[in-house]
């Protein structure tokens, strides 16, 4: 059913259609509209057979979801940024225990400095935890990925997080085709857990595992996660059939057939990237893009196929590993190794900085011209950086760096606007 609706509300609808039995959540910008909407549905009796628990922290939220899942209930929560860090112990715990819970991550930057806007640093902070991580390109994608998430989680007995760009998607109002209850019921059967705490068949879950078997337990997690590379395309195909539109998948190539330069990216920036690709193609440039929908497990083989033939691959990412460089870039480079393509890393959109089409077009042109550096921080205000280094060199008590930068930024803006 087509509706013009806020992304958060659309996701809340999708989650409700999946018939969660326990939702345990703690509010954090920019996820609040999602959990509020789900809570309202439970209260109004629209979502039945579900208990909505107002958790006292994110750690409590994920822990509640772990407990519920362990007794066989379909469980869901959502968070962002600092909230994800606060529940990180439990995030690893859920994966280690093999509990198929679903989490919406409204991607938001990690502090310090505190920042409420969108980037992917939160998702990156748990990339090794053993969760399936899916990235939504649009609110339609977010809706469809949530239905897939529950199906995938329960099929694999692995927790799944659906990443959607905070504010950019969560707070955008756009056209979405919302699935009906009948459609979701057809796609998502009742949860049949692999393990369940049953009063009639007692077992212990969560005991210590020593050196003798820890490696094997972790290897099993790895193997189970990798199965998503096979299961996701199959599930995506069956979902696409019922919903009558493309859904999910591992990677999504866009005009890559004869592309010399291919941009690889995740999340909402892909919309802007595709527009830029179309504009450059119209001028005769051979460029394309690949969106990664399934980031974990990493679809190395599929990515390699998608970028095959490209001279240059530009990874445009909204996070980086401090002291190293791009995170996605390194993983793409590792996958692309054999293809001979040069891989460039462009870090953009940190802390909610917009990525305008002009920037993407500029990056593509530089890549075509061979003038793109190996690592670029897009639209970096170098004068602010230089000013801070100068300040630091001038004396020991140079002051808090973030506040210094802000002061310089405001002063610069005042000068520019007169």
């Amino acid at each position, binding site marked *: 059913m087509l509706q013009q609706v806020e992304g958060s509300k659309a996701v809340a609808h999708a989650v409700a259609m999946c018939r969660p039995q326990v939702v345990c959540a703690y509010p954090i910008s920019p996820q609040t509209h999602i959990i509020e909407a789900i809570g309202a549905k439970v209260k109004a009796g629209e979502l039945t057979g579900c208990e909505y628990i107002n958790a006292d922290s994110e750690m409590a939220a994920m822990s509640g979801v772990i407990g519920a899942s362990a007794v066989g209930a379909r469980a869901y929560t959502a968070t962002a940024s600092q909230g994800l860090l606060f529940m990180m112990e439990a995030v690893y715990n859920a994966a280690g225990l093999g509990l198929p819970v679903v989490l919406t991550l409204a991607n938001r930057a990690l502090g310090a400095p505190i920042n*409420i806007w969108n980037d992917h640093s939160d998702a990156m902070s748990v990339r090794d935890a053993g969760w399936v991580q899916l990235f939504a390109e649009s609110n339609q994608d977010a809706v469809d990925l949530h239905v897939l998430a529950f199906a995938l989680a329960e099929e694999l007995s692995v927790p799944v997080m659906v990443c959607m760009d905070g504010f950019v998607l969560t*707070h955008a109002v756009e056209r979405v085709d919302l699935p009906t209850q009948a459609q979701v019921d057809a796609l998502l059967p009742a949860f049949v857990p692999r393990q369940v705490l049953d009063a009639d068949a007692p077992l212990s879950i969560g005991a210590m595992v020593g050196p003798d078997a820890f490696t094997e337990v972790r290897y099993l997690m790895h193997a189970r996660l990798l199965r998503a590379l096979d299961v996701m395309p199959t599930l995506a195909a069956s979902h696409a059939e019922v919903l009558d539109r493309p859904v999910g998948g591992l990677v999504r190539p866009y005009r890559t057939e004869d592309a010399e330069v291919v941009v690889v990216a995740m999340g*909402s920036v892909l919309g802007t990237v595709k527009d830029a690709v179309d504009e450059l193609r119209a001028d005769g440039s051979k460029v394309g893009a690949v969106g990664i929908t399934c980031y974990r497990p990493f679809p190395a083989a599929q990515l390699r196929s998608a970028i095959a033939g490209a001279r240059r691959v530009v990874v445009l990412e909204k996070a980086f590993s401090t002291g190293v460089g791009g995170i996605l870039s390194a993983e793409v480079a590792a996958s692309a190794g054999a293809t001979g393509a040069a891989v460039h890393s462009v870090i953009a959109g940190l802390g909610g900085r917009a*990525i305008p089409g002009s920037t993407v077009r500029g990056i593509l042109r530089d890549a075509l011209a061979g003038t793109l550096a190996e690592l670029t921080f897009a639209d970096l205000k170098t004068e602010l950086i230089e000013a801070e280094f100068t300040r630091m060199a001038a004396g020991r008590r140079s002051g808090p760096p973030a506040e210094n930068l802000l002061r310089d930024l405001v002063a610069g803006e005042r000068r520019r606007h007169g």
Partner: protein
Amino acid sequence: MEPAAGSAARPALSAPAPGSDLLRASGSSVQIRLHGRGGQGTVTAAELLSVAAFEEGLFAQAFPSFGSERMGAPVEAYCRLSRSPIRTREPVSRPDVLIIQDASLIEQVDLFSGLRDGAYVLVNTTEPLEDLGFPPLAALRRDHVLSVPATELAREYLGRPTPNSVLLGGFAAMTRLVSLGAVHHAIRHRFSGAVADANVAAAAAAFEHVTAEREGRVRAPAG
């Protein structure tokens, strides 16, 4: 906000309007930027605009500037309208339409930044536009720069100085991108009962006001 009721097909609610020229002329999408202050309903206005466009069978995308919006602080919201799916997500830097909910913002914000040639500007003010001291307006077509006393109309019809749905009526009259009927539908999806009625009436009053002003300016371009 409540989602607009939908079905698989989205028939337009009115005949193609002059605004469709704007749709064609601007290529991919019409870009609208709204400027207001926290508490004036700027974000809601953008959302309602997108719902009205949806009612007309258009693709529409609306989102705010995501600031820490306190009451009175400058707020921007954006809306894109198009006949085809909208993919880009960047803020509107080259607006085809500018809606200024609070003229005093000129002191704090570069309201006209990136304004395209041939753009439309709708200003919420009781003063004559010439007296506002907005130099960029002089470069635009006279019948593309219009004003409406939205706050006063809001006070009159709603009892509250919230100009957002009023301005949408003015927007519909100015650009003809959406019909007044679509604006009314959008209002009724968000509000109900007497509040909806009042907002609908206020939007209609603004529509009439701007229509008249536009026709006046069309007839007398030299002013």
